């Protein structure tokens, strides 16, 4: 029981890591990126390619994957999302959904539909004991990474000049522009960060379990549930949401593992019904 809760908290960290990029893009650009999960899966595939190509372990592959993912995110914002966001409320949903279909099927053509996983070596399998509980290094590292990433994002947004520009743009892009903020680069950076965190999370998910080109859908749904359960637009809320998801999943799995994902979805609907309506 205690073990399940602790495991749930650790797994929840990884969910929060996927979710924070989604939350950030929504908070700043009002963009619900349906392709977010697929971009995370791309991160896992990139790490896989780096491992196959240069024999690099996944952690070193990050040096390559993260800047690339940042660039891809910025590019997507400047080419697709920016235009879509000008097209009303439906356009971003449709464009990112279309992008998701394109990514999934490009992955199928490039890497086949077979499930894959990342080989984290001895580190991924090893664990350590704390107070009678055996914890996996990998899950602990995933949780720690999530906390560090969320903390850095928080500091970046709250304490730096860049963060002030982001918050100003999120509040009112027009007013921010009038005050001299260059909105396009700000949005491009936010989209870049969002995709980079997705790729990072995708790599952890790829180390923890198998993935295939269609995994993005469920990853998106989990990330979205974490964001909604935690409360929209709050990074620490997203962490809490991810942890609630993880713990629910692990506790239900104690009883019957087949019902774990269903329970998470039902919980999400419960929260949706009882939470106050967004202003």
């Amino acid at each position, binding site marked *: 029981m205690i073990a399940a809760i602790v495991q749930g908290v650790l797994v929840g960290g990884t969910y929060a890591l996927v979710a924070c990029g989604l939350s950030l893009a*929504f908070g700043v650009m009002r*963009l*619900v*990126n*349906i392709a977010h999960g697929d971009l995370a899966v791309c991160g896992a595939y990139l790490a896989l390619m780096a491992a196959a190509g240069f024999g690099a372990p996944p952690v070193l592959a990050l040096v390559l994957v993260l800047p690339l993912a940042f660039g891809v995110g910025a590019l997507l914002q400047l080419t*697709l999302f920016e*235009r*879509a966001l000008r*097209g009303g*409320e*439906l*356009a*971003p*949903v*449709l*464009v*990112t*959904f*279309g*992008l*998701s*279909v*394109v990514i*999934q*099927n*490009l992955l*199928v*053509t490039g890497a086949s539909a077979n499930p894959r996983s990342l080989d984290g070596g001895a580190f991924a399998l090893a664990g350590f004991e704390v107070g009678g509980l055996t914890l996996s290094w990998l899950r602990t590292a995933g949780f720690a990474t999530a906390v560090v990433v969320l903390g850095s994002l928080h500091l970046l947004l709250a304490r730096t000049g860049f963060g002030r520009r982001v918050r100003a743009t999120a509040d009112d892009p027009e007013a921010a522009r009038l005050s001299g903020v260059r909105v396009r680069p700000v949005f491009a950076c936010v989209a870049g960060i969002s995709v980079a965190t997705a790729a990072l999370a995708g790599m952890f998910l790829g180390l923890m379990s198998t993935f295939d080109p269609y995994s993005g*859908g*469920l990853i*998106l*749904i989990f990330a*979205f*549930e974490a964001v*909604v359960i935690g409360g929209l637009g709050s990074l620490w809320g997203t962490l809490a949401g991810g942890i609630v998801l993880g713990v629910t999943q692990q506790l239900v799995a104690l009883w019957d593992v*087949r*019902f774990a*994902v*269903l329970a998470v*979805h*039902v919980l*999400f*609907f419960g929260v*949706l*019904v009882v*939470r106050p*309506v*967004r202003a």
Partner: protein
Amino acid sequence: MRYFAVFVLVLLASVPYTLGPGVEQSLVTLFSLVAMATWWNLLAGFAGLTSFGQQAYLGVGAYGLYVLALAGVDPFAAIPLAAALAGVVALPVSVAVLRLSGGQFAVATWVLAEIFRLAVTLSPGGDTGVSLPGISGYMPLLRQALVYWCALGLAAGSVLAVWLLARGRYGLAARAVSADPDAAAASGVRVARIRRVAYCLAAAGAGAVGALLFTHTLYVQPGSIFNVQYSVLMMFMVLTGGLGTVEGPVAGALIFFVLQQALSAHGPWYLVLLGAVGVAVTLFAPRGLWGHLGRPLFPIAHLRET
């Protein structure tokens, strides 16, 4: 125009006597695509709600039909009942999902479809799929013809129903809601009710399509009927045809049908193309093929801007 439509319908209705089962089979697919796209368009094009979860109601329709047929109701008579069931299921669901809008509504509806899929998969014997009971009494040729006429009736009825809805008071209010919910509310439109009606009607429409597909294939599996791929198709058809027009989904269904016949052998590349066309149309031609090129056959606006 009206006479032409009746003529086309009579011509199509005679297909089982003239062109035979091969054409019949393809047209059933086309008609179910038309109905699917038309109801998705009521939601997205008129009420401004993009759902990625209409496959939930395809499944409710199909499994509703299964339960009814198991209870001894004639499968064809049970199709409208299954559709009504989907509409009724949508009512409590709408309380939760309509608290969201835009992309959040889209993902929430998708979660709902996942809940239904998992619930059916986890029910006893649910994961392997079921065959339609009570259908063996029909001779194959008659069964296929009945499925065909049901499909034709459903497609024509859906287009007519959405047209009548869209051109009337309801359609005006729905378009006001999708253009600007706050302004619509300020003008006395009951926003929540407009959205709820669209959501439940679209669910019933999807339920009818799901039940029909079941009578066509005679077999249903949770993994396929609850697949999000159906939402990809609905989105593609409505976008390419013309979002928010009555003719658009029909044109989109035709385009998709032709593409499917020509390209589906190319597997994933064909889906890459669908996704890319969907993105391109949204960005560069948001009114779709019909909106840009066609003249309204089913006008919904009472005043044309000059």
